[in-house]
């Protein structure tokens, strides 16, 4: 149990691009951290400890915690690095939360970043999997996700067109987000006509690779309202990392780790009807079909019912439960930052600082992280203080 009530009080992110040749990794981190401190009218001296994360083998730099000091501002401060694959950003966020909620520190800076332009992302992701049993046939994230989509579509009758509706939504939402990488709308036809990468996933179904960083400040009750007039209070987190071999995964069971994580989170936060009680979600949906089966895993509707929810516009801006006002992962994917961006964007919505991408009157927001071997992290944020 949390000892300290904890809130996000400031956020910052880079303008995400496929390649940022004007800054190296350290300078990219610095850009997000500076913007985050400005958002909270803080200086680096206000920060007690730093958590940082990326997929270190993507850049081939193995001491990111020490190497990045000039960018993170962790000079002479406690700093730890965490890496958990795609969930890195949500793990960074959860660590930041733990460090404050435990009473150890009052103001913790959490940073996620990636410079995907510096290596071959598919090859790098492949080396995150078992060398003996996974790598012969594995082809990075897209291959595993394609196998999942195939199982879901066959079992529940969802179509490639249903999945395309998710990509269309996220790309449309991204046009409202000045930080997003892909800010051009696409149509169902565009998605359907894009090249097949791995059946049934096509080019416009999947996330890009991005250079970008995100930073968030977690603060204890003593400081939260002094720094931010409307802090985003953390009401619960859950992390479910069930296994590590792809061959152990239940392909047709709609992301069991998300089912477990959201069930636990809703119980902690007293949420019974997530579709009604949550105002906005920022979900780590790395490809279109995840926007179907994984929202079923989140309990927004029954098995196989997600396509109807999508076509009815329930998850669009202006719908009952807008998903990914930022444009989500299909528009921006700086991998180590991606899941922290979800937490950050959820906090931005609660704080009411979303500008053109703001959903009106957000009191409750959910952020998710996805990665590793079909792992899920979830975080619930509210405008009201936890009891």
């Amino acid at each position, binding site marked *: 149990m949390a000892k300290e009530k904890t809130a996000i009080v400031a956020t910052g992110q880079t*303008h995400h*691009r496929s390649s*940022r*040749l*004007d800054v190296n990794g350290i300078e990219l981190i610095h850009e997000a951290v500076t913007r985050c401190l400005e958002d909270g009218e803080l200086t680096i001296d206000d920060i007690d400890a730093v958590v940082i994360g990326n997929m270190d083998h993507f850049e*081939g730099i193995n001491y990111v915690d020490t190497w990045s000091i000039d960018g993170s501002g962790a000079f002479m401060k406690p700093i730890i690095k965490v890496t958990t694959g795609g969930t890195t950003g949500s793990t960074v966020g959860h660590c930041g939360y733990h460090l404050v909620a435990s009473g150890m520190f009052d103001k913790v800076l959490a940073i996620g970043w990636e410079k995907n332009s510096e290596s*071959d992302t*598919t*090859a*790098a992701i*492949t*080396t995150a999997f078992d*060398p*003996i*049993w*996974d*790598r*012969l*046939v*594995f*082809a*990075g994230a*897209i*291959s595993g996700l*394609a*196998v*999942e989509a*195939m*199982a879901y579509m*066959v079992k529940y009758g969802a179509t490639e067109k249903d999945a395309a509706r998710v990509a269309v939504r996220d790309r449309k939402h991204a046009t409202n987000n000045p930080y997003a990488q892909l800010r051009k709308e696409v149509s169902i036809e565009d998605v359907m006509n894009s*090249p*097949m*990468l*791995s*059946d*049934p*996933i096509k080019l416009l179904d999947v996330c890009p690779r991005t250079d970008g960083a995100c930073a968030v400040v977690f603060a204890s009750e003593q400081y939260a309202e002094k720094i931010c007039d409307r802090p985003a209070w953390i009401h619960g987190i859950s992390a479910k990392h*069930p*296994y*590590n*071999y*792809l*061959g*152990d*995964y239940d*392909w*047709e069971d709609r992301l069991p780790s998300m089912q477990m994580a959201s069930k636990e989170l809703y119980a902690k936060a007293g949420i019974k009807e997530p579709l009604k009680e949550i105002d906005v979600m920022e979900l780590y949906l790395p490809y279109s079909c995840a926007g179907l089966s994984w929202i079923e895993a989140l309990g927004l509707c029954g098995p196989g019912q997600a396509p109807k929810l999508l076509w009815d516009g329930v998850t669009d801006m202006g719908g009952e439960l807008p998903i990914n006002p930022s444009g989500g992962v299909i528009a921006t994917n700086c991998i180590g930052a991606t899941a922290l961006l979800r937490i950050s964007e959820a906090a931005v919505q609660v704080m009411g600082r979303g500008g053109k991408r703001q959903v009106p009157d957000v009191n409750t927001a959910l952020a998710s992280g996805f990665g590793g071997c079909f792992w899920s992290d979830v975080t619930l944020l509210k405008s009201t203080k936890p009891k």
Partner: protein
Amino acid sequence: MTNQGVDLLTINSGEAEQPFCYTVGLEGSKFLTEIRDNKRFVGIKCPKCGKVYVPPRKVCGPCFTEMTEWVPVKDEGYLHSYTILRFAFLDPETGKEKPVPYGYAFIRLDGADTDFQHYVEIKDEKKVKIGARVRAVFEEKRAGKITDVKHFVVID
């Protein structure tokens, strides 16, 4: 992003190679040598939950229990799920582009409770379906590697 008139440079890491030498372990080695010497698959059973793991490993993660009971499994099973990989990508094992297209299959061998990952032949794509029966095809010359299995073929 602005370059302010400066040539923005990148530096390549060069042609350096760093090959790894991965330990297969006792259970994994038994699995691969059974394929090499006898063209047979074996699994290992958890004493607590009863799950049969293929490929075998020492510990059942969910039960956090060591496994010692070997169980024979068939060289036949069904396609639990699959995809056909069509995009060219860099294979970190070879440093070269992986030949595509290929069938990436999760095969539930008869007698196993987990999936074995391998190639499924895609000569006739229409036959490659979830639930299709498949059988392993072994290489003539075998070396104790996962590639001693050439691929799986649909036998429906």
